[in-house]
């Protein structure tokens, strides 16, 4: 069993706890144990904090990294926004001595030092990596195949972009999460402009809600055209923007989509036999019932 310090972030534990519960259980079935990262905080939000002062963003993210360094465990997380902060700050501080010294000057005041001894991973990439889990093992873990459902994937931005600094290859037309969806027995569906942003990032959701929802709405139009039963993603912030966003889109633009939005861990949980109650799917703003009827 591989062990990782589980960095929760904000939106999964505080808005979609089903995604958190699903992560522990699904990962354990695939040979990954997620340990509590005691005292972790907001990553902090790369849009909000990075925009105000990158140096504060570095220092705040470094505090979270040091907590995992003290545990001597790599970090696993389930949110693209957290990935941007935690992965990227780890990467930057390891690479740039000047930044590292600046951050350590701050952390000295709370008896901490960033050493650069751990790595950071998104749980989805651990699931996909054949040396750790791999698609075959995911397929073998399925008890309730999601047969007969059409599922689209939203990759989000901050996991794979900017591609030059990451290690995921193409960001124009990736298909690795579709492979993981197909492993659950569902039919992955392509749609127009798949890599378009959800619209929430960079502080735009808070700065200009209608602008951000308009981007979401463009995605919803494209998804509707493709005819899908559910949308899956690997980022609770994107999930919030699509799920609660659909309610806001109805209020602001008068259009209704009723498209269930599930984190990949929730989807995997269902396929591994977890009940909708064990996933707290009732907390979703958009009812998952039509999708569940097809599956269960």
């Amino acid at each position: 069993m591989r062990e990782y310090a589980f960095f929760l972030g904000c939106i999964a534990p505080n808005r979609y706890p089903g995604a958190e519960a699903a992560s522990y259980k699904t990962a354990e079935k695939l040979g990954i144990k997620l340990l509590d990262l005691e005292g972790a905080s907001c990553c902090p939000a790369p849009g909000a904090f990075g925009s105000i002062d990158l140096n504060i963003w570095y220092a705040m993210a470094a505090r979270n990294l040091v907590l995992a360094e003290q545990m001597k465990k790599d970090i696993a997380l389930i949110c693209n926004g957290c990935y941007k902060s935690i992965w990227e700050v780890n990467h930057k501080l390891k690479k740039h001595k000047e930044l590292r010294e600046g951050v350590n000057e701050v952390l000295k005041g709370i008896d901490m030092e960033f050493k650069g001894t751990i790595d950071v991973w998104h749980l989805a990439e651990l699931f996909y990596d054949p040396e750790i889990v791999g698609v075959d093992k995911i397929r073998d873990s399925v008890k309730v195949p999601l047969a007969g459902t059409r599922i689209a994937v939203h990759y989000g931005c901050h996991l794979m972009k900017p591609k030059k600094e990451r290690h995921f290859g193409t960001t124009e037309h990736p298909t690795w999460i579709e492979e993981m969806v197909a492993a659950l027995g569902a039919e992955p569906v392509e749609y127009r402009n798949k890599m378009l942003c959800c619209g929430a990032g960079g502080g735009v959701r808070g700065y200009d809600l209608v602008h951000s929802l308009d981007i979401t709405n463009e995605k919803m139009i494209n998804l509707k055209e493709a005819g899908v039963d559910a949308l899956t993603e690997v980022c609770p912030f994107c999930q919030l923007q699509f799920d609660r966003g659909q309610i806001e889109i109805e209020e602001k633009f008068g259009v209704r989509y009723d498209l269930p939005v599930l984190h990949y861990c929730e989807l995997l949980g269902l396929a591994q036999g977890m009940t909708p109650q064990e996933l707290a799917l009732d907390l979703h703003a958009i009812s998952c019932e039509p999708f569940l009827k097809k599956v269960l």
Partner: protein
Amino acid sequence: MARTKGYPEPLEKKLRDTRLYEEDTNPQFTKTVEKISMTIPHMCYQCGTCTASCPSAPRSSYRIRKFVRRALLGLEEEALTDPDLWLCTTCYSCTDRCPRDIAPTDVIMAMRNLAAKRDIVPVNFLKTVQAIYTTGHGVPNNDVNRAARKKLGLNPEPPTTHGFPKYVKGIQYILDYFGLKQRADKIIKEREG
């Protein structure tokens, strides 16, 4: 008879107003942006791939190419006081497609940092700071969520700063080190009373 070259005076004046004058530019601004962003806007040849890739461009007057140009020309005032500066969703599509290997997204982030230094920053960004200062979380827990967590067999408070509030002190130390909480409080009070 000698003729003066040019348009009639009112049009000439109008055109003059949109020209780039050296006194409006600050070469230091270009250098500062390049230092903070760790990227190279001076390499931009204005092809527009960035704006064409931008999800915010079709629905606003925000033009990322224009901001990169402003970085290159040192048009500090124009860049930092434009409200469009805050419409970038930081999706990094422009960065992945730039044929000059510039990261326009990081140019925007650097400009936002410089604007924020002059207290030009939307309040929603500062409210996130306040929330994190108090609880450690930008999106804190609530009672509906606590009840749901309990039903799931999770601790009502996640094992973060929520479950271990003693760690909030460290966060407050970092934010106070930069004086950010006081600044956030001050600016929000000015704007909202």
